[in-house]
């Protein structure tokens, strides 16, 4: 038995992981969650920004981190569309597919709303895709100094043909970045670091990032970042708050998301709320349990081997 465990073929571990994670992807269910303070702050910020000012989204991720970032962007777009807030999104990374995946997400949410009979966002009128800027720090510096110059030469697609960014209904009243209600950075890399350095004193920054980036970005919260969602768990937390609100009692008087703040933040009352992150969250549980079991099993095997060999290494 001990020998078998010590010489366990790694392919067995791989198959176990694949089978369990794949199986639980198809198990529907809503899990409870204790929501982190920084995620509540992010949701609160998104739910309280004025509806007459646009939001800028810097979306710096590709399909490699879709498990985390795609859920983030979907939730963000759903919140903005439900609140009828105009938004502009751009990519500040050298990874070209980042623009395309973000466009696909916005188009898909729009289709989803159309099928549900909800208001469909129109390019140029309600949102614009500003495109790719491969020099992260360069564009962030330029945006901080003069947004009109930084984006001025770009043409964006609208329902009536291509137009300059500041000719669109989304950006026509924006003179500088200070006229934007908030800037949300969705990232899988350190592009948030330069954004904090270059823009945090000019616009309210919020962050939605992978769990890996979240570890090093937590130091910016709450001073430079007004809210942040880190990893898949935070993606699920956002969806959970979209469904239940914060400090809002349900019909039985139960508050699903209690938070240490006086006010109530309402739930989203239209469209889809629990979606991608909710589907992946159970699988995250399973993957973590498998990982913990692997560590425990590995250590038990080591201890047993030591005892069998009389303490010899």
């Amino acid at each position: 038995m001990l020998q078998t465990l010590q010489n366990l073929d790694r392919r067995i571990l791989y198959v176990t992981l694949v089978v369990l994670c794949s199986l639980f992807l198809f198990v529907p269910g809503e899990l409870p969650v204790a929501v982190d303070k920084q995620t509540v702050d992010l949701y609160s910020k998104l739910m309280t920004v004025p509806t007459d000012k646009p939001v800028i989204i810097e979306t710096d991720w590709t399909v490699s981190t879709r498990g985390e970032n795609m859920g983030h962007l979907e939730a963000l777009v759903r919140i903005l569309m439900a609140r009828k807030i105009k938004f502009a999104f751009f990519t500040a990374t050298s990874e070209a597919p980042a623009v395309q995946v973000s466009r696909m997400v916005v188009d898909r949410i729009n289709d989803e709303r159309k099928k549900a009979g909800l208001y469909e966002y129109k390019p140029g009128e309600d949102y614009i895709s500003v495109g790719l800027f491969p020099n992260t720090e360069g564009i962030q510096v330029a945006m901080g100094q003069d947004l009109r110059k930084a984006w001025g030469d770009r043409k964006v697609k609208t329902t009536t043909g291509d137009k300059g960014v500041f000719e669109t209904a989304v950006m026509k009243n924006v003179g500088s970045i200070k006229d934007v209600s908030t800037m949300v950075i969705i990232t899988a890399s350190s592009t948030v670091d330069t954004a904090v350095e270059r823009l945090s004193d000019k616009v309210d920054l919020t962050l939605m990032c992978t769990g890996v980036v979240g570890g090093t970005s937590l130091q910016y919260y709450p001073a430079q970042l007004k809210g942040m969602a880190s990893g898949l768990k935070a993606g699920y937390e956002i969806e959970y708050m979209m469904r239940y609100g914060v400090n809002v009692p349900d019909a039985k008087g139960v508050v699903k998301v209690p938070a240490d703040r006086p006010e109530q933040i309402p739930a989203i009352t239209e469209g889809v709320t629990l979606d991608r992150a909710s589907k992946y969250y159970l699988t995250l549980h399973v993957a973590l349990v498998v990982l913990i079991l692997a560590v425990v099993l590995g250590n038990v095997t080591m201890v047993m081997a030591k005892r069998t060999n009389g303490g010899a290494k």
Partner: protein
Amino acid sequence: MEAAMFSIIAFYILSAAFRAFRIRSVESSVLMGSALILMLSLMGALTQSWGHVVDGVVVSTHNGFFDNFKLEVIAEWVKKYMQTPSIRAIEFGVGLGTVAMGLRIWLGLEKGGGGA
């Protein structure tokens, strides 16, 4: 391609967890303990269930101190008072080192590499 590469990491992590993550010293025990707490705190179902147990203890003993044993509270403490200061210290160190090296090059004291 990128998605495939990232997915493969999961297999290596699992294999390494089984074969290499061994408790052989105090340092590795501390690392294992904090990693375990953070991993458990990511599981909402578990944190809620454990939270109800802790709430029960708080109600029965009338002692709010036990609230500190909730998984999310411990994880928050680890992140706030251990992880974040460590990262800040590393970044300050890197920053000071960069300034010092810049000054050395500027003053002509650095003879190797870029100063040669």
